[in-house]
């Protein structure tokens, strides 16, 4: 082997080692666990074949969590994308206080999740929350209501928080993409008589399609497996109305210590995500 190649492998080895230890081994372990009944509390550890998977498919709690996860993901994504695009378009124009707006828009991303969750819990609170007060004052609700406490609104209320928290990252990426569009193209369109709106629809957005496509793909995966914000806001309640798949996995793992079942749930979730990724890739591939 050439000396350069040997050195190359030598540099690659630490990465391979870390990858194996942190990614490959845990993945193999989870797959192994999913075929076993493992409960650390009772020290049970026995092979049970596909029984965990059969139990999952016949468990209404799993299907409820899956449905909630899709709702959570789709609406969070749409909300974040719309607000991020509007914010990026705004920041891409020239105006005096642009820097202030940029800082304000980035603020949600900078805050730690725990602080975000606590602040929003307080804002939603029926006694001292601004949101409950405003909704009552405007006549939208008959009384001051905590939207996190109703089965009909707990998930939506959590999605609002997630949109607020997550849009800055998308905004930054879309803004970078916008700034990469050559000015000459837009100027040429203007000279040809195109309005700003038509420039946006027929030139800018189509040029952003690839970036937005990749962004949607990555954000879908990230939002799908978000756990922290839902747990901190509602614990998946009331009555499992905001219980998503990651929460269910957490509860099975660290609530009842059913490691085998939780591992099987994780594998199923991975399968679902893989299908989504393949679907998105096909769509993006068609675009190309």
């Amino acid at each position, binding site marked *: 082997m050439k000396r350069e190649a040997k050195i190359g492998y030598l540099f690659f080895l630490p990465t391979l080692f870390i990858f194996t230890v942190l990614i490959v081994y845990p993945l193999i372990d989870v797959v192994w666990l999913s075929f076993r009944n493992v409960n*650390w*509390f*009772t020290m049970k550890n026995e092979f049970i074949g596909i029984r965990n998977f059969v139990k999952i498919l016949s468990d209404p709690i799993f299907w409820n969590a899956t449905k909630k996860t899709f709702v959570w993901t789709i609406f969070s994504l749409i909300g974040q994308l719309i607000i991020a695009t509007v914010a990026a378009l705004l920041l891409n124009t020239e105006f005096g206080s642009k820097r202030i707006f940029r800082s304000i828009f980035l603020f949600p991303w900078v805050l730690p999740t725990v602080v975000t969750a606590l602040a929003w819990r307080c804002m939603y609170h029926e006694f001292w929350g601004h949101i409950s007060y405003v909704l009552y004052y405007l006549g939208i609700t008959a009384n001051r209501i*905590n939207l996190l*406490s109703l089965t009909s609104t707990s998930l939506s209320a959590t999605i609002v928080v997630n949109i607020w928290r997550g849009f800055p990252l998308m905004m930054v990426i879309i803004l970078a993409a916008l700034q990469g569009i050559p000015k000459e193209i837009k100027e040429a369109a203007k000279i040809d008589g195109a309005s700003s709106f038509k420039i946006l629809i027929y030139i800018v957005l189509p040029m952003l399609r690839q970036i937005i496509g990749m962004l949607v793909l990555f954000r879908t995966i990230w939002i799908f497996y978000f756990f922290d914000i839902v747990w901190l806001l509602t614990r998946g*309640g*009331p*009555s499992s109305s905001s219980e998503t798949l990651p929460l269910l996995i957490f509860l099975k793992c660290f609530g*009842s*210590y059913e490691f085998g079942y939780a591992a099987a749930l994780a594998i199923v979730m991975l399968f679902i995500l893989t299908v989504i990724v393949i679907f998105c890739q096909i769509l993006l591939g068609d675009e190309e």
Partner: protein
Amino acid sequence: MRKLYLLMILVITIMFLFLMGNVQAKEGITTISFWTPLTTQADKEIHSKLIKEFEEKHPDIKVVPEYVSHQDWFLRWMTAIESEQMPELALLDPPKAVWLYEKGVSLPVEDLVHEIDPHKTEFAYSKTDILSFQTPDGHIWAIPYVFNVNAIWYRKDLLAKAGISPDSIKTWDDLYSAAEKISSPPDLYGIGMALVRDGAQQMLFAWTQSNNGDFFNPETGAYQFDEPETRKKVKEALEFLKKLYDNEILPPGISSWQWGDYRLAMAKDKLVFTSSWGGDIGVARDQNPLMLDNLSVMAHPSGPSADSYPPYHYAGCWNWVIIKNDDKDKIDAAKEWLRFFFKPDNVALATTSRPVYNLPVLKSALTSPVFLQDPTTKMFLKEIQYLYEEVLPTGRQIGMEAGPTTMAGLLSSALFPGDAVQNYLFGDWDIDKTLDWLDSKFKEFFNDIGYPYEKGPFAKE
């Protein structure tokens, strides 16, 4: 040259790591450590004070505390057991204490209990304290030093204004009438409690017990929720909570209320009663000290099927456990520490980290000058004595009615009881569906963990 420097740095690093990992205790000094999930600053300060005093009296023993959060607790212990690197002691709540017993890593401590209380006058020997850790063979597996109990905290001023005597509230109907009379939503609600997913589970147990319902047989530990009498008591408890919610006695957002929410609401003049562990006092002290003059406590009123007043109360305690160790010196040092800790003044000091929420298990600690020097404790001394005399003897710990079982640990982290309460109170489940679902979940649970729920782990052959 550069390679030589890199090599030297590598060697020094390895040597440093080796030395750090192999720090030996100074000769003649026995080092013992305890793990605890009591991670508040107040607890840490009290531990430091006690350790300092102990080490001055025992220069040959060094005590090292390690603070492990509730979330990390079981994982840390599982790792410690697997790697045989356990501490010598643990200071913990009952589910965790029972878990250690079930893992076979704790030592029996009845000899120490006898040393601390030779005349059986200090501990209550009730199902809240010593008896909950006693197995049929007579061994005791943990020594409690504080207890907590869920009782009804109330606003003295509001009751007086409404002309209601607290002594007249002995049944659930009395409580309902008083709450309904005084409350004026949305400014003031009748009762507050933690009904968030994990809190709802506690309320199910607390209100079932105040109806004198036991989920597990107090003699054998057998599951008895599926017996008609117990099922009736649980049904009444759930229906009472639903009545409170549907009639706006409970605040509308209570499905998301954690423990801090009702305590704060009480401090901020939003509630008349709370079903509480006494943490209202600490929050009122911080947020609205003037409210402290208006707070007092009563036993849970009895439910319709309770045949006594006061009824059973949902209780817990914090305990010391000695961990098995091959080193006899460490076991002796651990026992020496506990002999020191269980002096009444030291137990009294340990409870002051959360005055009124923590109540000393030792009778002498109640009259200790250390206990009485805390201003909040002094202010609520009458309430503390009331809880000790009237309520502690009726205390019950779920899953430990007959003795220490895995139930205590697993039930404390399982969410299905709370889910049943939430689905019934805030969802669209009817009572029969709720009870049937709860029963099926319990049995699934027992089968998963191999709990002998039909006969009970303490059934005599």
